[in-house]
């Protein structure tokens, strides 16, 4: 439990909590970006370099921008009733709190007695690349296929309907 962990955890929690509670949706996306950057820094602190950089590239670079574009194209940024919480806002928060309490109890009783070794393993980009080309070739190909299908599917779904109707 070091100072850097506490600092990064605070950044992540503040960013994500603000993303889920602010009224203006553009502010929500900006706060989400902050939280995702904190998470990427946590990955880097844990020694997983490639995952940290992928997190920045994919989430901060692509998903947040995509969400910002979706907000602008659906005109959700204007303050409307839609941006407030739904009719069962209180019970939803209560359910989330109960879920957190159960998980925290399980973590506290399950891992606090555990003696974890701290060998500081390294997952350099070179090692990850070698593993992707040897042990994980098949999942890599399947992920490529899935991303191609998602690219085509997203394009078809977002296409103008009048062009498809003919």
């Amino acid at each position, binding site marked *: 439990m070091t100072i850097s962990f506490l600092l990064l955890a605070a950044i992540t929690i503040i960013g994500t909590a603000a993303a*889920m509670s602010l009224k203006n949706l553009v502010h929500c996306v900006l706060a989400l970006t902050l939280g995702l950057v904190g998470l990427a820094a946590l990955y880097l602190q844990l020694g997983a370099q490639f995952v940290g950089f992928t997190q920045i590239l994919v989430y901060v670079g692509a998903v947040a921008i995509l969400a910002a574009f979706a907000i602008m194209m659906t005109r959700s940024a204007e303050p409307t009733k839609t941006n407030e*919480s739904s009719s069962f806002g209180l019970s939803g928060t209560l359910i*989330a709190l109960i879920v957190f309490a159960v998980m925290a109890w399980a973590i506290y009783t399950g*891992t606090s007695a555990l003696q974890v070794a701290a060998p500081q393993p390294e997952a350099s980009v070179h090692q990850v690349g070698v593993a992707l080309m040897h042990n*994980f070739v098949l999942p890599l190909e399947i992920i490529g296929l899935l991303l191609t299908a998602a690219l085509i599917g997203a394009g078809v779904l977002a296409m103008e309907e009048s062009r498809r109707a003919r």
Partner: protein
Amino acid sequence: MNALSGYLLLSAFLFSIGLAGALTRRNAILVLIGIELMLNAANLNFIAFWRYGPHPEALTGVMFAIFSISVAAAEAAVGLSIILAVYRHSRTTDLDQMNSMKG
């Protein structure tokens, strides 16, 4: 309280924030963002268990996190384009008003 449980507690809290957002917000884009946060919490668990687990040289946790991030990216792209298609059809992103499957 060791280092692993700190990461696990943070991950559980992130999951709860995402769950609360997905359950309470009315805008479909924010519900999707909440689901992304829950996926991110799972990724943090993978990395923490890889770092403090018994066989870190196998790189299994790192690989699972990388594939999980790619699947989440595909899900976000398809989900947001579905929201755009629904918005073009019914002029709303309010989930409380999306109450009919046809027209």
